[in-house]
């Protein structure tokens, strides 16, 4: 939608982007999508602004998940004393970090993770990484072939959630300020910015309209959500897709909103060890297996059921929107052709 006239918006010339980032990098750790020498784009900690190529169009292969919920994180160490186990929580110093160039899908997923890790119980390990983080988003003018954020309500442009939100207008960025830290950044380095005019806001709206027309897929997420809620997805769909799932866990690992984890203790020697938290996935049989071997989830017919019901039904009930953000990462990684787009297509079949 066109931004309201009251929105606080500014212009940043592209020539001045690096200068602005250099200022930011003096006070923050800077993370941005970087194209490496094998031409993969990955969110990377920028330690040399001049030696790295920041890529703002092609979406990064990793999401921001690993920065807030690392694939493996030490929660504490322990020692065995005559009195019993003694736990020493791991102290981690997380520098205040600016995440720059975050696409709307990844912004939405951080907002979702905030709900997961602070709604009922506050997760101190997540929150200490999240607190003091600044999110600078970039709207997507050119969605990638697997993208379908238009169908999940999380893109291609976003109105809320970031501290600063950029839109590429050719030689300049339109910069909108979302939350207080964004205002503070603009104020702190106001020399880089000039006020946006009505024609800039009109150009942003035009870019948004054009981006909406550039999606190459039409994925009927809303219809699948309704069918899941109504219980009209045929059993055969679950069975067919579960049979094809190759159990690699790739979907959960690349997914920006899959937050399942397992905590395990690793013994170092007879009297000490560490407690680790690792990513896990509901599609793994071992995730639900009970002691003694019984598994309430029959892998062959229901391995992927939990995953899709959670994202497209349970989270809709809980938060009003699906926790699939339409980034398409699982579509590219899936070995068996059981990604969420295939599920949505199968679930919606026969609707005429």
């Amino acid at each position: 939608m066109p931004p309201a006239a009251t929105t606080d918006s500014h212009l940043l010339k592209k020539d001045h982007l690096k200068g602005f980032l250099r200022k930011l990098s003096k006070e923050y750790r800077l993370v941005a999508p970087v194209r490496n020498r094998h031409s993969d784009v990955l969110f990377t900690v920028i330690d040399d602004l001049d030696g790295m190529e920041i890529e703002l169009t092609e979406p990064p292969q990793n999401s921001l998940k690993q920065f807030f919920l690392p694939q493996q994180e030490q929660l504490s160490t322990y020692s065995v004393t005559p009195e019993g186990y003694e736990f020493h929580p791991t102290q981690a110093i997380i520098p205040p970090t600016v995440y720059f160039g975050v696409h709307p899908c990844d912004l939405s997923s951080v907002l979702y993770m905030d709900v997961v890790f602070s709604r009922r119980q506050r997760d101190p390990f997540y929150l200490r990484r999240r607190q003091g983080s600044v999110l600078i988003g970039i709207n997507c003018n050119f969605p990638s072939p697997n993208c379908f954020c238009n169908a999940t309500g999380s893109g291609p442009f976003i109105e809320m959630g970031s501290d600063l939100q950029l839109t590429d207008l050719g030689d300049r960025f339109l910069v909108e300020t979302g939350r207080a830290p964004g205002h503070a950044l603009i104020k702190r380095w106001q020399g880089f910015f000039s006020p946006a005019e009505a024609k800039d806001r009109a150009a942003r709206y035009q870019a948004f309209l054009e981006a909406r027309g550039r999606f190459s897929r039409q994925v009927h997420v809303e219809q699948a959500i309704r069918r899941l809620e109504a219980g009209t997805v045929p059993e055969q769909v679950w069975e067919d897709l579960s049979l094809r799932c190759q159990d690699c866990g790739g979907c959960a690992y690349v997914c920006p909103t899959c937050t399942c984890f397992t905590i395990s203790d690793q013994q170092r020697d007879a009297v000490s060890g560490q407690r680790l938290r690792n990513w896990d996935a509901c599609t793994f049989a071992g995730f639900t297996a009970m002691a003694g071997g019984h598994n309430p989830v029959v892998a062959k017919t229901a391995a992927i059921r939990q995953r899709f019901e959670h994202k497209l039904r349970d989270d809709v009930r809980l938060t009003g929107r699906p926790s699939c953000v339409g980034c398409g990462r699982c579509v590219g990684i899936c070995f068996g052709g059981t990604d969420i787009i295939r599920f949505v297509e199968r679930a919606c079949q026969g609707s005429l």
Partner: protein
Amino acid sequence: MTNSINEIENAEVILVSGSNTTEAHPQVARRMLDAVDRGARLIVIDPRRTRLAECSHLHLALNPGTDIPLLNAMMRVLLDEGLADELFIEMRTENFLALTGVPLPLINQAAQLYGRARKAVICYCLGVTQHVCGTENVQTMANLAMLAGHIEKKDTGVDPLRGQNNVQGACDMGALPNMLPSYQAVHNEDFREKFERAWGARLPEDPGLTLVEMTHGGAQGVIRGMYIMGENPMLSDPTLTKVEETLRGLDFLAVSDIFLTETAQLAQVVFPAACFAEKSGSFTNTERRVQMVRQAVAPPGKCRADSEIIIALANRLGYAMDYDSSAEIMEEIALLAPIYGGIYHDRLDQGWGLQWPCWDRDHPGTPFLHKYYFTRGKGYFMPTSHIEPGEMPDHDYPLLLMTGRIYHQYHTGTMTRKSERLSRESGQALLQINPADARALGLRRGETVRLVSRRGEITLAAEITEQVALGMVYATFHFSDAPINLITNNAFDTGSGCPEYKVCAVRVEKIMTN
């Protein structure tokens, strides 16, 4: 593979034999399933009802060890139905004979599907080769492909799926008893001379021994010293009691590996090796693609790359071996191994590597083989007929045991069993047994049973499943606590020296407590 992996996606018919592809080669299975989604027909020949068999259009659940009669029957159908590619046979092959077989409706259907397809590939794996007649099985497969003419075009071919990242490269580099690098035969004087000039040393004129000839030599075997690299015969070779006797009887054993394996524990000297992420060089995968591997992290402690260990060892043994980098070794490979003639690190550094044969610097590599001619000239129809497995079930040992792999573990588990997550998914040896057989023995799910053959016995847990047919059981060789190769038979394919891991006779005993 005669094909590239991606070509599988374009095939109209895919015939998979003796390959549990979704578990053993997921990346290849992914292409097969993509092809199915695009309308390809999938035929699976496997005694077990594997995941891939469930996804197939036709599952030919043959009795283990009867590949040749089955494939011959398919050829009979092709001939009877006029589906043989007569022009191809006339122009490109010789010694074609009418082979007889047993016509069954399913075989008929499979043959029709395969024969009538415009583009069809055969993928096979160890279920074909780990038999006393492994060589003949492969020859029969080649006969079938030649008969249907499914070999000279893109998206058609015969594809053995190699199991390890670099097993193809090891064979290419002459890690075979009868071959110098690039499949230049040891017995050929010209080839030997070429290498002797380059290396400044005399080379033996006779082929060496195959793996099992070495590890089954016995306590007084002719081989007195061994240097074993990245291999764990104390778990992977058949009849482990014999392997242990042989290795313990050596005068000297050195092992290099990244962990202290069962084999390394018997060694006098153990070299800690660097793993894939700790060294630079190239691997050659199943589609003959040579790819760069770049060091990501430094090796821990005193670990060194295999090449560094070999170079240091050669120098201590009095041979001045001098290479400064793996790129320099690659230059020597290009010099001496014609199929690698145009492969250099600077070329590999760009893009996704090169597929051999790649004859010179300007050659773009070869996505699929045998386009205009076979290596020997004309394709040869090698007539084959049924060969009985080395041991079949009988009164005392009424069940047929097949061995193989499962998804979450890799080979002897030296690496994968170190992972807590993989062990959670599959952490113990299981014996797959048909529900009817389990009922007859009074077994419950997960019950520990004794598995007995003429060679030995182990205990492991029963997994009751219809994946295996009545009279068959299946187990994996990943677990050192239930070493299945104490059980397997001491029979080999005389052509390749490959052990018959896929068939032996066993008995399952219920363990009585109290």
